């Protein structure tokens, strides 16, 4: 449970910030995927964009969590928790 919070929450905050900066600079209506304009409403692109950012930031957090855990286990050190 705590691990899920550690992964999902910071990535939510950073994903939200990334979303804000990205879509302030770029208008979703101007987006092209493989050369084709995206045929979705702005609201839809904002929502999908946010979850895409969150997915990537969460993947990064999860990887950090995983590496922390294995390094502690492999060296047999106390986690200090």
């Amino acid at each position, binding site marked *: *449970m705590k691990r899920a919070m550690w992964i999902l929450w910071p990535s939510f905050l950073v994903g939200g910030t990334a979303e804000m900066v990205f879509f302030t600079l770029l208008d979703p209506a101007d987006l092209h995927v493989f050369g084709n304009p995206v045929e979705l409403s702005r*609201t839809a692109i904002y*929502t999908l964009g946010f979850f895409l950012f969150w997915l990537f930031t969460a993947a990064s957090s999860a990887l950090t969590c995983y590496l922390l855990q294995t390094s502690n286990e492999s060296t047999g050190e106390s986690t200090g928790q």
Partner: protein
Amino acid sequence: MASPVPLKVVKDIEQPASEAPLYEIRQKIYPRAVSGWFAHWRLGLVVATQLLFYGLPWLTWNARPAVLFDLASRKFYILGMVLWPQDFIFLAGLLVISALSLFLFTAVGGRLFCGYACPQTVYTEIFLWIERKIEGDRARRMRLDGAALDADKLLRKTVKHLLWLCVGLWTGITFVGYFTPIRTLLGEVISLSPGPWETFWMLFYGFATYGNAGWMREQVCKYMCPYARFQSAMFDPDTLIITYDAQRGEPRGSRARSTDYKAKGLGACVDCGICVQVCPTGIDIRRGLQYECIGCAACVDGCNQVMDKMGYPRGLIRYSTQNALKQDWTSSQMAARVFRPRVLVYIGLLLLIVTVWSTALALRSPLKVDVIRDRAALMRETREGKIENVYRLQIMNTDEQAHRYVIKASGLNDMRVTPFAPVSVAGATTQSVVVTLEVDPARNKPGSHSILFQVEDMDQPATRAIEKSRFIIK
């Protein structure tokens, strides 16, 4: 025949401390209700912040919502202002101002934000209030959770969760109401026809509120909140914290009201445990400053009530500073330390940024222009032997009224601008205008020339925008 190997069953070897489980098991906390000076302050702030949050989307201004973040058309309406993506810097500035204010409050007053105004605290208070109304006080709630499931328990739990979900849903609707006009939204919700994305965000935000305030509660502060961790950087020995006066309180122990505790060698703490029972994060403040303490002062209120009952002076648990406690300062000595260098630096920075930010906002031009050269052709020769360059001007009128603009150009001899007539742009819209510039090659040198476009408001000539571009003559 070999004799059987003697086997002895041994109990599991105890795990060494280094392999103890990484996560402690969460014990559910049942905060006891408390009343008093600080509880009233918190209640006041709950009401004030929520009146603002739930009420703001309903306010109207110029026949439109007073506050509307219209993401679909990329415009933010805030009272009399219309902000465009180009004005993002003001939003960033506002965030910097909020962060600096938080630093200032934290340096002076400790976790004031956490204890009184943080949405996590505010919604937990609201959800706890519902819980108390349905399930009763602390002791009854604990009994109810320990009891077997019967009709009464099922009913109480169902009603509680339904009410929580209603508050969550209303919060979700209000949240989306900042992005879609709330009257339209509510009409759609009642007729069960909101858009798919709006439905999604209402449910997402609603469930997040329900989960955070109903289930997660203090865990959000303890494990999820980054501010809780980095605030120590803003703390110093003169920051207000909730403290237990151990010198006065120890040795603690129970006694009758009539006992002369000093004669018995006891301190003022009667060890009633109220301060632990009222704590929303379940800590014992008597163990000293802990990072879990959100500074809500519920233990201060709780202890003061007990002190009143015992006829002892209040303030065994109180707001104080580390220095004041160590050196036995009076409150005026403590107040004298408020304006220390760190605080003065925060105040100075804050004043500076607020001044720059509000000046820039006040002087913000209601007209913005972008010039894009026509990509198809660099230049064109007309039948009369003149040279023509074509541009696309994006004229953004950020004012709410319509305006007429005159387009002029300078930088070369005898430039002719088409269109010559003023261009009318409706309120809070962008208009794209194709502009043709024409020069006589006999009167200008060949090459690439720097030119200036000037777009001027016909009715208010002070409002103008000047943009650079290039003119090419072969």
